[in-house]
């Protein structure tokens, strides 16, 4: 693993904790789904933690991100709290979006998260527009656009990358390549190299091991600094893996990928185990300290889940609120 020269022990420990928080959040979300306590379904980020954490640890709260249907990891990594997240997943009034968004639309604007998006590639314009606004308003904030390899098949991506390059916008396109475009191998749907598509617009493109949080963080730190000084946009392809299926209900998936492959990624390339082992090796934390951190996070998550399960749903009167900013109740009673 590379030595991030401007990082200290606290930074490494925070990155570890943030990755464990994501994994723990997802394990709890999966249990809520399996026990039929969560409405709808959700898409697990487990396995991809080093991507969200490595990138978001290089950002400030005023920097912005746009997220995807597989967005819990980005949300946690950008500073969200368990309680409001679990409440949102369960459709409760205390959720980040008062229960109106759910898993696929969590937004946390206070921490710069402009929202998950249930349209694959749907947030690429939003991220680019956020970068345009930062530049026009004279701020040195950077926007990171998270999307998966599947989204590289959307035309919108090429339209907005073209404009971002023409106008030198401070945006980093972060392609989480987990090798599967929903239920299809990405090699079957993507011709050529993904990074070459960005290079075609004159955008500097990098490929990085998305299971190595320190490498992801070191690269992002450099790109974010250059972005702040007007050097953007950039494109990063992060090679990673999703441990679960496309969504929590995608259990039987041997028709598109093997159990051996899944085992190999989990046992040999897990981002949390890798950083944990490195922390011990570097004498930054003992095994006991790591276990204590894991335990504390598990307790926090359990308390948040308990809170969310008991929390009230939004009152019926909220159903037609927030349609417009200035019309308190937008939908008249039927027949009224």
């Amino acid at each position, binding site marked *: 693993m590379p030595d991030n020269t401007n990082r200290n022990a606290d930074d490494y420990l925070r990155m570890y904790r943030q990755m464990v928080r994501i994994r723990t959040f997802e394990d709890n979300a999966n249990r809520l789904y399996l026990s039929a306590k969560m409405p709808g379904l959700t898409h697990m980020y487990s396995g991809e933690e080093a991507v969200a954490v490595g990138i978001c640890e290089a950002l400030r709260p005023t920097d912005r991100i746009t997220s995807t249907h597989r967005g819990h990891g980005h949300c946690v990594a950008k500073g969200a709290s368990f309680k409001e997240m679990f409440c949102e997943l369960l459709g409760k009034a205390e959720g980040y979006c008062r229960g*109106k968004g759910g898993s696929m*639309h969590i937004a946390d604007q206070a921490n710069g998260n402009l*929202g998950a998006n249930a349209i694959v590639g749907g947030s690429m314009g939003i991220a680019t527009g956020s970068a345009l606004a930062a530049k026009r308003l004279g701020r040195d904030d950077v926007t990171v656009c998270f999307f998966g390899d599947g989204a590289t098949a959307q035309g919108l991506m090429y339209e907005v990358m073209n404009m971002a390059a023409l106008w030198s916008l401070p945006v980093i396109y972060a392609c989480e390549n987990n090798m599967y475009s929903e239920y299809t191998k990405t090699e079957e749907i993507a011709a050529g190299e993904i990074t070459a598509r960005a290079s075609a617009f004159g955008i500097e493109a990098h490929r990085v091991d998305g299971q190595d949080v320190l490498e992801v963080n070191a690269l992002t730190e450099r790109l974010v600094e250059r972005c702040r000084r007007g050097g953007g946009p950039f494109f990063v392809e992060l090679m990673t893996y999703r441990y679960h299926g496309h969504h929590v209900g995608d259990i039987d998936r041997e028709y598109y990928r093997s159990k051996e492959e899944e085992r190999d990624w989990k046992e040999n390339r897990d981002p949390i185990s890798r950083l944990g082992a490195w922390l011990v090796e570097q004498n930054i934390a003992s095994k006991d300290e790591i276990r204590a951190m894991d335990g504390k996070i598990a307790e926090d998550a359990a308390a948040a889940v308990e809170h969310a399960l008991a929390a009230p749903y939004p009152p019926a009167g909220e159903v037609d*609120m927030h349609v417009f900013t200035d019309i308190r109740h937008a939908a008249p009673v039927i027949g009224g």
Partner: protein
Amino acid sequence: MREITLSRAVNEALAEEMRRDSTVFVIGEDVAEAGTPFKVLSGLVEEFGTDRVVDTPISEPGFMGIAVGAAMTGLRPVVDLMFGDFLFLVMDQLCNQAAKTHYMSGGKLNVPLVLRTNLGATRRSAAQHSQSLHALVAHIPGLKVALPSSAFEAKGLLKAAIRDDNPVVIFEDKLMYQEKAPVPEEEFLIPLGEAKVLREGGDITLIGTSSMRKVCETAADELAAEGVRAEVIDPRSIVPLDEATLLASVKKTGRAIVVDEGHRNYGVTGEIAARLNEKAFYHLDAPVLRMGAMDVPVPFSPALEDLTVPTSEKLVELARKLAAGEMIHAA
């Protein structure tokens, strides 16, 4: 009062709002030096520069999405969509993103953007440059929709839309860009959701949007010569819709025809007629009637195209029958 063209009115509204608020900017295809194919924006880039009058590639979903993101993070974009027909290209960004962001975020995120585009047939531009698609976006909760019917409305509604914290879609009638109307020199706004009674009458209510306002006014002149006093109302915005003004008129006249240039099937005329039937049933002497564009793609040949839009002649004919009590069991 001075008279200016609708094109000039739009240009003035943009210039005034851009001077007032530095976060307002224009984005779209050929908006800068070209000033759009209709020359509506000519002169803006000279005053405000290319940072605020932003020419884009021919990438409608792309610049629409960029506008949504810019609106969410502190700017007030005015998107120029060259033809209303191109709405189909921006539907995801407009309807899945812009329209729903405030709601999906539980009220935390706003999208204060304006999408300016146009409507209207009989310009001999055929099926992909002639549609009136406002009903399509009015169907989506979260979007406000305004339909200026003259230079006066074009200026007042656009200024109000730019100051609105919600996404607003404005459809200008492209045949009306060079038409003049009295527009005050001093500043004014027209709030979205306020219809205008253009003339009062007690026998029948003619409700006309955008290009159909003039059709209604011409028909009202002819009907007056026959002794039928028509009340003419322009809703000015269809979301929100000023139901109270429409209902008050229909309760007085007992008869109404709704005229709109969108397709008749599942359109604006059906929506307004249904609301009047639901809320003024006992005041009606006959069913509320509708006139819209014929439910065919807009044909190129002038001989065919002119058949597809409502005209004052057809409206007079229908109004005459309605006033005479012939339409009570209309098919």
